């Protein structure tokens, strides 16, 4: 496992994290850190604890009474459990779920929702945010003439990009994507991958994916989760070149199991 280098800026630091559902331990992470402006990939088979990890980061575990999170996750240097206003924590972190969700509001209102809730009232400001986010999500050209249409009636690929636009509307420092391409066609997947590469200069990205090649294309460093533990973290190039610390990683990457 590659340790965090001294002097590199970490946006997220994990120490001694244990996540349980009832009695069952779904994830144990002794140590992990995510650097600023990197795309951090997480690969591994289903049930390895990847989604639980994301939930713990933005404290969505509070909505699940069966979930128990122990240990420390430091976001921007502060333990997420110690934020006084958990909602402002969530505003700093954007999430994209596996299934595309277009809210049953107009496209405009979908993207303007979060800024409005934060108090932005000025029409010009909102217009700017909506256009900016939709541009960044590579959706603007397709919807600019029908910002009034219902977000929930867009196609799957459009809804997923709409979700990204929503996630960007609060200018988060961290964007987490959980298997975003599962329900999305390959063309849109490619477009979103381009979007992520562009966004890297502005924000940090954690990319959970079941497509090993997607991690190879996008991630700077990749972590391999298996059965609730992190087997190893390494530079993506190294891992895919066969320079692995653990043979299981190579097996998974080569598709010997999944």
């Amino acid at each position, binding site marked *: 496992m590659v340790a965090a280098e001294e002097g590199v800026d970490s946006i997220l630091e994990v120490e001694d994290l244990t996540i349980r559902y009832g009695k069952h331990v779904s994830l144990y992470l002794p140590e992990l850190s995510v650097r600023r402006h990197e795309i951090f990939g997480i690969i591994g088979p289903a049930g390895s604890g990847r989604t639980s990890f994301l939930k713990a980061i933005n404290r969505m575990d509070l909505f699940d009474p069966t979930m128990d999170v122990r240990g420390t996750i430091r976001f921007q240097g502060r333990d997420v459990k110690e934020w006084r206003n958990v909602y402002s924590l969530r*505003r700093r972190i954007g999430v994209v779920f596996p299934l595309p969700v277009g809210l049953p509001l107009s496209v405009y209102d979908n993207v303007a929702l979060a800024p409005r809730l934060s108090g932005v009232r000025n029409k010009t400001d909102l217009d700017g945010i909506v256009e*900016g*986010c939709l541009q960044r999500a590579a959706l603007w*050209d397709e919807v600019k003439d029908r910002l009034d249409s219902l977000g929930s009636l867009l196609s799957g690929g459009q809804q997923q990009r709409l979700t990204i636009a929503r996630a*960007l509307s609060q200018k988060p420092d961290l964007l987490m994507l959980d298997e975003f391409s599962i329900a999305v066609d390959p063309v849109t997947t490619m477009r979103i991958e*381009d979007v992520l590469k562009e966004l890297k*200069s502005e924000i940090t990205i954690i990319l959970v994916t079941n497509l090993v090649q997607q991690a190879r294309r996008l991630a700077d460093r990749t972590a391999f989760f298996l059965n609730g533990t992190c087997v190893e973290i390494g530079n993506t190039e190294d891992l895919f070149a066969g320079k692995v610390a653990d043979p299981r990683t190579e097996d998974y990457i080569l598709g010997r199991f999944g």
Partner: protein
Amino acid sequence: MRPVSELPELPELKDMDRRDFDWYADKLVQVLVFVGGFSAIVFILGIFFFITREGIGFILHSLDIVEFFTSPNWRPTSEQNQTYGALALIAGTASVTGMAMAVAIPFSLGAAIYIGEFAGPKTREALKVLVELLAAIPSVVWGFIGLTLMNSLIIRLFDVPIGLNILNAGLILGLMAAPIMTTIAEDALKAVPDHYREAAEAMGATRWQVTRKVVVPAAKNGLVAAVLLGVGRGFGETMAVLMATGHAINLPTSIFDSVRAITATIAAELGETAVGSEHYGALFTLGIFLFTVTFAINLTADVIVRGWKR
């Protein structure tokens, strides 16, 4: 797509870790809605409390439990010897409810089976709407029909002197209870998983055989609950029964006898009593009895339904 570097900067939105108005508003709403939810418990307890409060005087001082349940002499206004025997009233309620169930159970079940297992989607919609309209008819209108239409119908058809009797109120009550029984029975049938039906049909059974031998037995919990709810409805119905049963307080011997139900008694006599009097307390005691019985019926039905849904 324009490269990100060319796009205008997104404005930095306020994000300090500070508890703002929305944070406090959320907590306040949490309290308010809890109060709303809890109010249901407050009200059901309140109902029991207040009817007991008015009836406790009678219960403690004048109630003779044996007489109450075994004597058919309900004579609260007699000058010499007031008696509060509720047997005739209980018999009245029971007989009318029994008649109602005799009508409603087969018809509701038949309707539920037809709607659930045989009807096509459009027919099903139409029938369900019509059943809903049946349910919408107010009880005082039913009572009025009992007084007028049913009354003359019974007199003519059966050649009896009075048409306000168990048969009249029972038929009406049956029609009033049928919609909810049909709906619950239909839900119970619908809850039987499709693969039961498919397995039976794969063995060559007809629709009816599937229904009779597989679906209905599997749905029996829900069907029992439907019957219980219908009985509860029958026990508690006031206006229709008041208007259609006639006014005779006696133990019935045939369905053409006039009777008096508990609900009707309370409704008919409460206006004549003085607050706090013995008669007044007796009526509230009848109310406590009604409340307890319907509470028990509803509780049982709910337990059965939850057992089935699990």
